[in-house]
């Protein structure tokens, strides 16, 4: 029986003028259901590409990506849309909230297209935004915006929550809050969370740490006892 998420020999190449860049070079790893996995790597290590491929935003050139027994690499365009729609929650580095919608409405935006969504207000309170529901993104702080983004991703009730440097644009405290929110969500709901970061100091919070370098998986380590975020210092 294979893992919940299974990356096998995945390659992704970009044509840059005359040269071909191997963004992902025969990468392979697996993540079990309910795990909080962190993909760690420097800029250009190919971690974002891995996340994009996993999230159905980008496609791989080689290899297979199995998510919950579904081969994502073989999905066509509209199947990929459905995959994104029903199976994936995405949290962006820059939150990517719709400026013209209030916090709640931004969550609702995702919910609109997802039949098996969670209750919006519940999710909002879950991320601690009860008070700021009707505020526009511009009226919210970065952390709050990221929480809206997380709420938006969670409200869809996805199989997989993908976070692209969720703390990248945040200060230390806020970043910590966001990370602990993600950790809690993983623990409480048993949702599989994949988080990419270049900050290796947050690795202890993960169940599984996948280190990447130059498009290759350098190592995969398991933390038997992940550390709560509050205990991590960086």
């Amino acid at each position, binding site marked *: 029986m294979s893992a919940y998420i299974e990356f096998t020999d995945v390659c992704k190449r970009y044509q840059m003028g005359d040269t071909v860049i191997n963004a992902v070079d025969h990468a392979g790893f697996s993540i079990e259901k309910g795990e909080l996995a962190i993909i760690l790597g420097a800029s250009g290590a190919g971690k974002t590409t891995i996340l994009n491929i996993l999230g159905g935003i980008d496609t791989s050139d080689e290899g297979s990506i199995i998510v919950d027994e579904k081969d994502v690499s073989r999905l066509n365009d509209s199947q990929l849309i459905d995959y*994104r729609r029903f199976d994936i929650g995405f949290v962006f580095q820059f939150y990517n909230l719709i400026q013209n919608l209030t916090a709640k409405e931004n969550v609702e935006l995702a919910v609109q297209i997802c039949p098996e969504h969670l209750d919006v207000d519940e999710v909002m309170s879950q991320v601690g935004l009860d008070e700021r529901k009707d505020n526009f993104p511009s009226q919210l702080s970065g952390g709050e915006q990221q929480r809206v983004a997380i709420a938006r991703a969670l409200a869809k009730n996805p199989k997989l929550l993908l976070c692209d440097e969720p703390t990248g644009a945040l200060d230390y405290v806020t970043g910590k809050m966001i990370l602990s929110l993600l950790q809690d969500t993983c623990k409480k709901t048993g949702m599989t969370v994949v988080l990419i970061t270049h900050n290796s100091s947050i690795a202890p919070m993960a169940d599984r740490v996948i280190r990447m370098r130059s498009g290759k998986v350098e190592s995969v380590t398991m933390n038997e006892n992940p550390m709560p975020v509050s205990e991590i210092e960086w």
Partner: protein
Amino acid sequence: MKKKALFKDTFREIKKSLGRFLSIMLIIAVGVGFFVGVKATAPSMYGTAEDYFSAQNLMDVEILSTVGFSREDADAVAELDEIKHVTLTYSADLITENNGEYVVAKVMAIPADMENSINLPVLREGRMPTGEDECVVIKSTLLGVPYAIGDEITFEEYAGETVTDDVLSRRSFKVVGIIESPLYISYSFGTSSIGSGSISSYIMIPAENFLYERYTEMYVTLKCHDEGISAFDEEYDEILSQLTKKLEKLGIRQYNLFADETNAQIADAEEEYNEGKEKADKELSEARTQLEDARKQIDDGLLALEQGWKDYEAGSEEADKQIADAERQLRHAEASIQSGKKELAAGIAEYEQKKKETEAKLKDARAQLDSGWAEYNAGKSEYEKAEREFSAATAEYQDAIEEYEQAKEEYEQAQRAVSMAQATLDQIKAQIDQEESHTISATDLAILQAALEASKAQLQNYQEQLSTMEPGTPEYIEMEQKIADLEESIARQEEELANLSVGSEVSKEEMLEAYDEAQAALDDAQRELDEAKAQMDEADAQMAEYNEYKAQLESAESELNSARIELEAGEREYEAGKVEAERQLAAAAQEIEDGKRELENAKASLKSGQRTLKKKKAEAQKELDDAHRQLVDSEEQLDDAQDEYEEGMAEYTDSMAEVEKELSSGFNRIQNAKSMISDVVAGKWYVLSREDIMVNYANFRQDAMRIDAIGDVFPVFFLMVAALVCLTTMTRMIDEQRTQMGTYKALGYTQFETASKYLVYAALACVGGCIVGPVALSQILPRVIFGAYSILYSLPYFIIKVPIGMLLVSVVVALICTVAVAAVVCWKELRTTTAALMRPKAPKAGKKIFLEKLPWLWKHFSFFQKLTARNLLRYKLRLFMTVLGIAGCMALVVAGFGLNNAISPISDIQYGELSREDVTFYLNQTSEKEKLDDLITQLEEDPRVESQICVVTYDCKASDPEGKVQMEDTFVFVPENKDSIAEIINLRDPDTKTPVALTDDGAVITNKLSKKLGVGIGDEICTTFNDKTYTMKVTGIAECYIYNYVYISPDYYEKVTGEKNGYSQVILCCTDDMGSHDAFSEEWLAKDSRIVSAYFTDMASNAVKDTMASLSIVVFVMILCAGVLAFIVVYNLTNINISERVREIATVKVLGFNHKEVNMYIFRENIIMSVLGVLVGSFLGYLMAQFIIQTVEVSMVTFSHDIKFVSYLYSACITMGFTVLVNLFMTKRMKAISMVESLKAIE
């Protein structure tokens, strides 16, 4: 060198965003091009006209005078400062026949000095006249007469009341060339006071042909053209109005000179007149007396002549009677001669007859005698022959006797043989009897033998007989036969006997046979006996005959002798008769000779009588002839005298009339001159401008102005929309590149250098557009528009004059919209600190929109509807720009359709619903209704004519009672009665479409007239026609689209003008199957000489349709341009919308929105903006259409001001169609947006 990288960046930017660059360029091109193109139309029209007019030295002013002009007048005018050149010339309106139709031609003198003269014609074909009898005609048009080179034009004797021969020295001219005249820029040649009222051709003939003493026209050109003042400028109008005043003043002065001169002449003339009158009166009275004497003499002569004739008649009668008597006598004599002649002829005939008869009788007697003699001779020779025969017969007789003896002997012999044969027979019979009981015995044999013996004996006997007979005779032959038979029977008997003797028994049959044979032999013998007996008898007869013959002979002899005696007696008698006859004949001949002589005598005397009569007759005739001749002579003399008298009388009357005429004309002239002098106004000069005399010159100017006015609305709007879009695009572009600008700035580039990238980008797009657009459209649009107007105006060529000022203005506007906007936006951005620039611009904050304050509405919105609403209102400027851009296009399209709407139905409504007339007959003069009754009756009989009505129309100027507003192209229309007008014109209310009645209390005016003059029902209107102004009351307003009419009833006409109107036209409604127009008009023109021309409404409706079609082309061009603009606008704005929101789109894509949802996320806004744009545009379009329609409307045509709902519908469809089309284009782009974009940092 240092900016190389910057330029590279700029060009890469262009390459990268080629779509945007091109869209800016195109929008500038269309905007500027359309503006310049439309704006170039009017200057091109003016310029072309100006160029053409100055090349042909078109007159600026035409001066007319009631008294004509002299050279001195021209010299006086030439002395004025403004005047460049003066030409004096002649012209006349004359009538000529063309295909049975009488048409009016304007005949103009060709000036002697062509080079310096005014209104030079352009020679199109052929050559200018060299001979006096040659002419050139204007190029034919639709309305004109198509003359060709070589045609002969002959003018009619009368042109209205003018006698052609008083005007021209000849009436026929040969066409040698085809010209165009700058005086005629439209296809119509204007109106004339004669004939059909419209001029159909313009003919130029050598000036020498004109017989006028004074020039009829003076043409003047102005110096101001050399100073660059266009005839279409207002300055020109100013100069013209001042000059007009001067000329009018000069006219009065010149006229006074003329009047003084004339006054002197009048005084002389009056004196001359009085003298002449006196002298003439005296001469006339003398002539009168002479004539009276002559009259008396003639009367006497006539009386004498009458008596003479009477005498002559009597003499002539008498002579005739005498001659008749003489002739009767002569006729009697002649008759008796004739009868004598006849008698004589009868006598001669009788004599001849008798002579012939006598001769015949003698001849008969002679013949009888001769035949008697011949008979006698014949009888004698016969007798002699008989005598000879008799002697032969005597010899024969001797022989016969001998024969008889012999025959007697034979007979006896035969008797014996018979008896012997009987005996044999008996014997045989007995034998047979015997045989019957016994067999044949020897006796039988013996019998047979005996029979044989007997036969043999008989044979012998026969042979003996034969030997006695003369061989060859029948008896001899018979006998020989008998002998042969007998020998045969003997042979048989012998055979029988032999048979018997052989011993065989002879049968009874044999016996019987033998018996029969014997019997036969007996019979033969018997017959022979008979024959012999016959022979004997014959001989006896012969002997008797001989004896008779002998007796005959003897009687013949005696007869002969008696005949001879008789003959000799006849001969004697004949001789005696002959002598007697001859004597008688001689006597008769003598008698005839006497008669003849007598007749000759009578004849001679008749002839002499005849001669005498003839002579006498001739004498009498001569006498009579003499008398007659004398009478005729005297009659002739009298006639001559009479003629002479008549002549004298005529001469007298003529000279009297002439004298009177001369005197009266002299008198009149004097009076005229006097009155002219006394009435200074009569001596006015009329100063007419180009607009006054040239057909459609004013219209041409107005049309050009109209197009210019359209150019003020349409393209300005166009340019505005273009500017708007450029502005949005440039702003957006610079916003997008904010961080880059920060980077440049951070790198140390100056503000200007940083901005220059965008300025160059904008400038290139703008300049490109400004080159492409005006170059293309300024060449195309004026041609298209003027091409459309070429239905109305004819200029020989078309020069495009691009208004540089307008071009510069539009280029400046374009530069402002692009480069200046770029500069401003850049400057605004660059003003902030570099660091701030480096940071991404904070996205515009979302906020609650006003709609949310209406929860009852807001809560009904779906999530996406809310989102759309917020998005729309988030960027209010963009919303405003987009809506305005789309609205602008919509407005342009609506205006285009509205214009089309306004013009296209005119012809259909006017000629389909309002006007029912089919044909208008123009009459040669205005006449009373009663005089046209016969024509009406004839028309009623034509099956093609459904109804007809007599009308009269007056070309008038209408104005409001204060005279503030004037309307041209107006007609006063008077039908024969107020009710029958409904047969030809549907007078109806323009709004309610209910019928409007024509009454005797006032006028019905057409809607435009009412609107323009501000005159409603119950108000008054002034109409000026026939040089008088009348005020009429308005009782109704009727719908009408072409021309303006004031309809009044004949009674009202009389009430207003104080006189009764006549009728000059007959308007007909025809059946649908009336057939050929030409045939119809030809037939009627030939049938009634009063009909001068027939005008078919079809022609008008087609002409209107053509005009409208030409405007439709203009409209179509506008719609097309507006459509193109709409597309570019929507494309650009959508493009901006998308590029502004790439990140958002990528995010929703990542969220799992499918394509449709993503598209709708953006397009929902587009569609709503388009709908808003359409709504706003409909309103704007309505306003624009109204403005344009009012500007374009000409005075003769009324446009429909309603824009049909479908026009809005079409426009909306076009605009929305473009939106949808652009959205379809954009879906591709949306699809291409990579989701990876969402991960990028905000730049």
